């Protein structure tokens, strides 16, 4: 459904282009929930924006990106006509900014429905909007409400309903659970999971929350400094990490009944355009050896997953 081949995405600035994502090879099958996990600033949202066609005008690209059998990025050319907003939609990080505060939810939903299904009668538009609202478990009364009259969780649901209006095939959910409390996080995640099953959607779920990822995903893609560092089938991958980055990330999760100080990953993620040579994770890696500093590891098949780490190189040769 979504396939990228050596995709690179960067942003133009005064001194050139800062490449945020480099040589990305990603494959997402139809009807699969894929989680992109990584720290802030590692390029997760950029990948999400590229898939949903919402890169800003000053973005530069190379490689290829195929969404629903359509080549949308080819070299430095982007062509999202007919795909963006129709086949692939994005659920925004901040639902408050996705909804116009001066229009009721119903008006915004019916505008979207009318755009994508011209020729529907006003009555059908309204019943379709109400259907969408009930799909995201909102009452009919929400139709005539303004965004400020909804709670944070309801706004989030309304934004999801708005994204579903064009009946898309791929949904990119960019941190849909940020700024929600633990209960609502799981409510929104299970709603997305339910919608994904019922509508047979392909869901790209971007998060930095490993517990949510564990809960929802079929496929895990761990991103660090604009590269995939580990890719594999979810539950096993998150139980027994291969790449040192994921290992440290999982150690940093709070554990029940543990009295130890919460572990952290020393250092900061590198800024785009200032990535270190060799393995991008080597300045923070506890297992670092000489080769890591010199050469960037390729993606290596290690058991049931793909890892970008020299430690698995020897093993893969045999």
């Amino acid at each position, binding site marked *: 459904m979504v396939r990228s081949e050596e995709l690179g995405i960067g942003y133009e600035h005064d001194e050139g282009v800062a490449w945020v994502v480099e040589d990305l090879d990603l494959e997402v099958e139809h009807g699969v929930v894929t989680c992109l996990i990584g720290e802030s600033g590692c390029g997760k949202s950029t990948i999400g924006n590229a898939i949903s066609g919402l890169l800003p005008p000053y973005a530069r690209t190379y490689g290829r990106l195929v969404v629903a059998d359509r080549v949308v990025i080819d070299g430095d050319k982007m062509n999202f006509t007919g795909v963006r907003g129709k086949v692939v939609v994005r659920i925004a990080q901040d639902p408050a900014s996705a909804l116009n*505060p001066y229009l009721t939810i119903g*008006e915004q939903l019916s*505008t979207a429905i009318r755009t994508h299904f011209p020729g529907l009668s006003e009555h059908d538009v309204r019943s379709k909007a109400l259907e969408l609202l009930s799909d995201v478990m909102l009452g009919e009364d929400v139709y005539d409400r303004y965004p400020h009259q909804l709670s944070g969780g309801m706004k989030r649901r309304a934004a999801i309903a708005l994204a579903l209006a064009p009946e898309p095939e791929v949904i990119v959910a960019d941190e849909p659970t940020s700024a929600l409390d633990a209960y609502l996080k799981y409510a929104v995640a299970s709603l997305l999971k339910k919608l994904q099953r019922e509508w047979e959607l392909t869901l790209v779920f971007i998060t930095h929350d490993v517990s949510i990822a564990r809960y929802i995903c079929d496929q895990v893609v761990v991103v660090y400094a604009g590269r995939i560092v580990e890719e594999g089938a979810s539950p096993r991958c998150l139980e027994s990490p291969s790449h040192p980055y994921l290992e440290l990330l999982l150690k940093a999760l709070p554990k029940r009944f543990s009295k130890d100080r919460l572990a952290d990953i020393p250092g900061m993620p590198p800024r785009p355009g200032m990535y270190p040579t060799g393995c991008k994770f080597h300045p923070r890696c506890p297992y670092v050896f000489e080769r890591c500093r010199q050469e960037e590891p390729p993606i290596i098949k290690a058991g049931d997953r793909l890892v970008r780490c020299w430690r698995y190189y020897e093993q893969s040769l045999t």
Partner: protein
Amino acid sequence: MSSLPLRSTIEDITSLLTRTWRKRPGFRVSLIIMIVLFTVAALGPYIAPYPRQGLGVEIDVTNALLPPSPKHILGTDSLGRDVLSRVLFALGRGLYQSLVVVAVSLVLGIVVGSFTALAPRSIEAVVSYVIELLLALPSILLAALLAILLGGTATSITVALIVTWFPWYARVSYLQARGLRELDFVRIPLYYGLSRAYVVVKHIGPNILAPMIVEALSDMGSVVLEISSITFLFGIGIGSFEEPDLGMMVANGLRDLVRAPWVFTAPAAILALIAIVFTVFGEAVYEEHHPILRRRWWLWF
């Protein structure tokens, strides 16, 4: 079910006005006086006792500078014209002119401001520098200059005031639109290839209209004063000496201040009333809209 983004704007404004009405006695008084003023201004030409003198087409030098009497309630001026009729005609014109200036500047400002915020970088920079340049120039001088260049008629003074007035609205709406343009509901339609005009009308306009109308309401008084200042100081803006205008009447009345103070007093009092009432009204609305400014008079000390 026509989508009516204006509905919520109207609700916003009416709720703001009713809230201000409930809370502020000054607002109630000024609103009532304003309604009376507008009614009188609208009816002026019909209730004026000497409409031909009010318009200035008829003069009667034999009755010059008569003190107030039952025949001429506010007396007569140096050309023997009934001051009350003159004031009634001038009031209507002044208020009408200031309404036109505010309304046109508001629309022009919102359009310029919101399109500037969505325009490409270079155009955005140029337009905002031009707006800042217009803001930096002293508006009375610029308006006077433009009014002279355009021929010194009442229309020219309206145009001149619009030119000096709309940059304020353009600036404010530009800043508000800039805040909005980073939000997804404005950004994403543009990425989808929808036209800027659609985004301005559907998303930016409704979101900035209510605060802009508040700005405009609180500015009305200053516009009336500015028009009168220009006509008073430069004696321009009126096609002929005879046409009624509050600023001109004050200027002419000054000459006979000692012999006939009533010629000067009536238009000056009306001007002062307009200025005070409009300012109280505007301040009340503005402070109710930005409660944080309520105590800003502390800053004067």
